[in-house]
């Protein structure tokens, strides 16, 4: 186990609605998310003295959020990055709290991911005008190979060839995450879908269809981390951080495509650190959030983090294994495929709520931890949820992760 296992806790979570469009600034949305997370934890602005965020040149800063909310911070830093950032910043935060740089830290992401800068690269009005191909993009953009779907599609295609997996396995993931979204009042896409719906959806870039791709939404989402001793005095059952990894790289990470296997992803290099630090095995995990920028990213991470063998994920996901009440429920909020897109924070938030036994679903008593487990009635609380693995993804060659433990079940 890690020296700091269970010593720090996630004590507050909050987010804005997923909007399309928000008609708001990233600063305004971030203030709302941080306020909600503080209220959730039972913290006042004066109790928070650390703040960190990540962005891609598309967001506000900790400086502006703290100023707007009347906080004086002892530590703040904003980093560059996308999907591999949430769990990496949890790791940073543990180190900072342990070293005494601050006592209670906010982690947030705020993005107009649909109405502002779209990660898919497409402007709201259609294909984008003249574009600058600089740095690595010199060797991708001129060949019309730019968006995440186009980049990850290359690895997905080779994976299908090497393993014999078909796109029906990708469909299983889309169906599972959408089913969970149907139980989440906050989710953008709530109509359940079938394997056939996936197979009949239009191509975006072969081998990926529309229903293989995540949503793009305007949203801010926030986590608050503090020490175990402080957590005991706060409003919610604490969720303990057992271990994690931060932006673990595969070899040759800046050019995935010359690696021997372009679908042997970074999680393979983080797996033993993650489970070793947490002191548990995959069998101990009750639920996961498995980064679903695309169905394929979820699929490949199941192998990378050892939930199934190499090349076996296509079979593993069949029969609803990733759905609630089955062996390994994944992305209980609906994930980025169906709830909305936050570059990872919302997946950790959902796991925190599940581990508190307080999934915000249709059960009248959810806020007190009373659930019916009746899926027809809209309950999405995983029964006896104790341990959740957060499996982040940045690219094939970069990923972050965390294992969380609750005490409410």
């Amino acid at each position: 186990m890690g020296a700091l296992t269970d010593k720090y806790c996630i004590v507050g979570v909050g987010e804005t609605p997923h909007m399309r469009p928000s008609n708001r600034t990233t600063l305004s949305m971030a203030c709302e998310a941080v306020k909600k997370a503080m209220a959730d934890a039972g913290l006042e602005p004066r109790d928070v003295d650390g703040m960190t965020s990540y962005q891609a040149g598309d967001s506000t800063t900790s400086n502006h959020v703290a100023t707007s909310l009347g906080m004086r911070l002892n530590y703040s830093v904003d980093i560059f990055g996308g999907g591999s950032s949430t769990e990496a910043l949890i790791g940073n935060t543990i180190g900072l709290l342990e070293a005494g740089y601050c006592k209670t830290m906010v982690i947030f992401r705020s993005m107009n991911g649909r109405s502002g800068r779209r990660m898919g690269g497409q402007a709201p009005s259609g294909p984008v005008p003249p574009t600058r191909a600089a740095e690595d993009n010199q060797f991708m953009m001129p060949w019309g190979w730019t968006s995440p779907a186009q980049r990850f599609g290359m690895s997905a295609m080779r994976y299908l060839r090497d393993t014999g997996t078909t796109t029906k396995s990708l469909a299983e993931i889309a169906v599972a995450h959408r089913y969970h979204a149907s139980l989440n009042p906050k989710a953008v896409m709530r109509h359940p879908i079938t394997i056939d719906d996936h197979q009949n959806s239009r191509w975006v870039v072969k081998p990926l269809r529309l229903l293989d791709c995540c949503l793009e939404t305007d949203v801010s989402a926030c986590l608050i981390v503090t020490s175990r001793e402080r957590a005991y005095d706060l409003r919610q059952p604490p969720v303990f951080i057992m271990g994690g990894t931060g932006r673990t790289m595969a070899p040759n990470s800046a050019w995935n495509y010359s690696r021997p296997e372009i679908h042997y992803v970074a999680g393979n290099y983080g797996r033993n650190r993650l489970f070793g630090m947490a002191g548990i095995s995959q069998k101990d995990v009750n639920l996961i959030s498995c980064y679903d920028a695309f169905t394929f990213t979820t699929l490949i991470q199941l192998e990378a983090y050892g939930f199934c063998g190499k090349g076996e994920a296509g079979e593993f996901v069949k029969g609803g294994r990733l759905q609630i009440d089955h062996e390994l429920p994944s992305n209980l909020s609906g994930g980025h495929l169906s709830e909305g897109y936050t570059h990872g924070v919302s997946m950790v938030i959902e796991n925190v709520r599940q581990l508190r036994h307080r999934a915000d679903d249709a059960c009248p008593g959810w806020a007190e931890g009373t659930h019916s487990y009746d899926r027809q009635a809209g309950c999405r609380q995983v029964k006896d949820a104790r341990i959740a693995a957060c499996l982040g993804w940045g690219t094939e060659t970069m990923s972050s992760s965390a294992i969380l433990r609750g005490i409410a079940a």
Partner: protein
Amino acid sequence: MPGPIDYSKITITPDFDTVEWWMGTKEHKYLVRQCKDCGHKWFPPFPACNKCNSMDLDWFETAGTGVLHSYIVVTQPILGAFVEAVPYVVGLIELDDCHEADGSLVRVGGVMLDDEEDVAIGLPVTVEFEQTNEANIVVPRWKISGTADNTWKFSE
């Protein structure tokens, strides 16, 4: 063959590490970086050898031939330059003459001149150079150059 690509809608911006590569394409050379000290080859042209850390580097002129390792078929254009080109195939090409004893190799991307129906993983490909409407920019394209056993095609 895919429709025309409007390169005027992309501003290719070479930097100090890459400008010689783009000059190479003007002479119809497909270059990769090579270490003068240990002979290692790589691409894109990062400025140090990741085997021996030498920064004393050369360029290796490849034969411009390889094997298709993977591909995608873009049906929805993202860049303005490719609006007329869809559907087009981007190939990932494993270069023939960059294999090293320890298994390291070089793969590069490029737009195929062939249509989706003719493309399969495992087929041999060769480079062709396309003059763009920007006088200084010549872009490599790739085309199927033969047949092979054990090819694989994506089927819906």
